[in-house]
């Protein structure tokens, strides 16, 4: 233990806070919107109906089990049907169901009212990250898992939001009706935030609609809920609701960042700068499949270390990263990443883990390649 004092300290601290953590969570939360509260009410209503029926039926069974035993010399009755009782216990449950269906229908109609939104956001599921695009705002970004690998591999203590934290959360204004246009780029994903009671499947080639109106500023966390491959458990959803002013400020900042990012394409990059940026971008976008070591997981995810493409001519390497490989998990990153990141990643891949091509791919090369394709 003395060799890892910080780890030990972290574990002790974590243990000390155990009672404070909601490790025994037992129920759905009422959530943060009107819809989520009516869903919660439906959930509790049907739950209590079930409890009452259960108490009556199981009560009768336990009464029989305790009082009508052969060991107590009980003589069995011989009745075996009773028309009125049978009709009654067909009709009564039916009536209960009709009564339950009424509020459920009302809530469902409300959930399906996607009209008159104040803000439209396109959500695209990728293996294994989310992409958010603010329609008409020129703001878009990816949202990746932010939990460090060391926590997943138990080399560091896990923090409170373990696996439910991202680098770029989806930011929305409170009080506004936000409409989500949900789709996917590869397999089916499902975008879920429990506090908003929004769960919508992201289906490649189709667009689903959902909406929410958050009342209080805060951070709301969820996860992908449709099995989407290896890292299905590692693509959380984080929504940050901000006041109208804070949201406007965030949006302006985001636009400025996007602009600065675009200008980077024109900058003169050195080999070392590209390698540094490339390593980072590689970890975020490529390492899940091709692994931090570049060794991949053959045969599904091929190795890049010493691969023919990563050590061959530039054009082939650009083509596969930008256009992907149809019929495999290799996505077309040309539209996903900035020219700088593409250039940095490709430069990194050609010169890391013992790959020693020595050349450097600049953002201008990427732009030229894209132009040639069009």
């Amino acid at each position: 233990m003395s060799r890892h004092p910080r780890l030990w300290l972290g574990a002790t601290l974590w243990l000390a806070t155990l009672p404070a953590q909601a490790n025994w969570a037992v129920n759905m939360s009422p959530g943060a919107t009107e819809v989520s509260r009516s869903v919660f009410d439906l959930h509790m209503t049907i739950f209590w109906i079930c409890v009452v029926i259960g108490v009556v039926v199981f009560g009768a069974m336990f009464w029989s089990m305790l009082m009508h035993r052969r060991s107590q010399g009980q003589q069995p009755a011989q009745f075996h049907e009773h028309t009125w009782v049978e009709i009654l216990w067909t009709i009564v449950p039916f009536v209960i169901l009709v009564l339950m269906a009424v509020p459920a229908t009302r809530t469902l109609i409300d959930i399906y009212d996607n009209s008159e939104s104040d803000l439209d956001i396109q959500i695209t599921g990728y293996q294994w990250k989310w992409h958010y695009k603010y329609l008409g705002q020129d703001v878009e970004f990816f949202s990746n898992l932010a939990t460090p690998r060391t926590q997943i591999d138990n080399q560091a203590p896990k923090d409170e939001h373990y696996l439910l934290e991202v680098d770029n959360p989806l930011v929305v204004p409170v009080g506004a009706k936000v409409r989500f246009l949900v789709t996917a780029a590869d397999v089916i994903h499902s975008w879920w935030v429990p506090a908003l009671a929004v769960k919508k499947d992201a289906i490649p080639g189709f667009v689903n609609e959902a909406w929410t109106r958050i009342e209080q500023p805060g951070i709301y966390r969820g996860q992908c809920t449709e099995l989407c491959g290896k890292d299905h458990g590692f693509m959380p959803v984080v929504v940050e609701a901000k006041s109208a002013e804070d949201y406007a400020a965030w949006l302006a900042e985001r636009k400025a960042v996007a602009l600065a990012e675009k200008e980077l394409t024109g900058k003169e990059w050195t080999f070392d700068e590209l390698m540094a940026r490339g390593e980072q971008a590689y970890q975020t976008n490529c390492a899940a499949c091709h692994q931090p070591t570049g060794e991949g997981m053959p045969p599904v995810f091929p190795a890049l270390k010493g691969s023919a493409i990563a050590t061959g001519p530039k054009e082939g390497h650009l083509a596969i990263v930008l256009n992907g490989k149809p019929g495999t998990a290799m996505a077309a990153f040309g539209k996903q990443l900035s020219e700088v990141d593409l250039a940095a990643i490709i430069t990194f891949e050609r010169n890391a883990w013992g790959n020693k091509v020595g050349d450097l791919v600049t953002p201008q090369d990427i732009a030229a390649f894209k132009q040639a394709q069009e």
Partner: protein
Amino acid sequence: MSAVIDSHGHAHGPARGLMRWVLTTNHKDIGTMYLVFSFAMFLFGGSMAMVIRAELFQPGLQIVQPEFFNQMTTMHGLVMVFGAVMPAFVGLANWMIPLMIGAPDMALPRMNNFSFWLLPAAFGLLASTLFMEGGGPNFGWTFYAPLSTTYAPESVTFFIFAVHLMGISSIMGAINVIATVLNLRAPGLTLMQMPLFVWTWLITAFLLIAVMPVLAGVVTMMLMDIHFGTSFFSAAGGGDPVLFQHVFWFFGHPEVYIMILPAFGAVSAIIPTFSRKPLFGYTSMVYATGAIAFLSFIVWAHHMFTVGIPLTGELFFMYATMLIAVPTGVKVFNWASTMWRGSLSFEAPMLFAVAFVILFTIGGFSGLMLAIAPADFQYHDTYFVVAHFHYVLVPGAIFGIFASAYYWLPKWTGHMYDETLAKLHFWLSFVGMNLAFFPMHFVGLAGMPRRIPDYNLMFANFNMVSSIGAFLFGATQLLFLFIVIKCVRGGPVAAAKPWDGAHGLEWTVPSPAPYHTFQTPPEVDERSRLH
């Protein structure tokens, strides 16, 4: 025909050696093989559940990596559904239906042999994928496209052929049950006199014939997409990934009733026996089973409330699903009324049967909750669903199978099983199973998605409880193996009718049931009480 009828008065025993089992056309031998095979698959699928629960014992990745975890969840589901539960019920049908209706054998004995021997081939093929490059199926037992087509490991083709073999086997088994029940009943035995186990199996067989070809269709469409350039499930080529789900669940929803209706039938025999009182509402039981079977065809999209079906579709499937509660309720009320003012005793079959009624009903309650579409948006694809279907399948289907096994073991082996050990098996299974699956309701409601190898700390404690329960439940099943072996090898001699409250033709033949029974049909008249 009369020339081949054996009329020289002595019973023919089984052939000797291995070939007895390979070539047998005897319904008892084939029933035994089905039951042994299904128990082997139960342990195989169960050991994969142990891997899953070991990984989920604590947050963080400890034992397996996500890609192998996904293979475990997928194979666990496939093996349990197609390898353990379904063959177990076919085994029970083979053994018991001819004995219950006074038939000398199944109507199509050679096909019976073939349909069994397809199963080891199918599961050998399926299990071999685990050792292939790229691993076995990793897309969940529901194998949604395009994860199971474009993005699947190469072994998916073997998976498709394995599913085809299982489907052919099931369809042949179903045809055999229908032909037997409709043609080979003892003279005078009317349909409405049949034991409920025969009734529920007859209805199950029709469900099988209706939906197994649909399953074969959907995997064939996958095969075409993967190898022959079609685009059934790819939007890029004009197809639709959601089409896959519609076709799959048109098979999948009746499939869940295929796995539970025969258990309903067995429990409807066991509860009256140990209550020493006739089954309450026999006629309504038959009609309720028929109603459930019919409704099972028009509710499939309740598995797909979040895929974006239109509001009217959503409402239709919500209402239709809620309706299933009515006939299911009738059944539960009938079982409870059968026990009411009976003279109850609690031998192992009764313990499992009573636990079946209570715990299956809990699974039914969570099913009713899941039917409420707006609430389903919160439950869908979380551990709440995992809790729900394990409550209907483990204490439902599997407790139904255990109850049947203990109930009929004396008839099969000629010995009484060890009642003390059997009760221990029940209580350990009962505690383990509830410990494993009840907390899953909590973590699901609190927001834990299913099919994930790692989770946030707020789910940690209940997951640990679940894992402990699962280990207990898993280990306990070895006790069942021991009890059965002990019973086969010896034990107190069983009478022809070892349960004083039992009714039915199967108790009129000696225990163990001779190799050939009812070569002369038994006498059945209007007043005979067979259930």
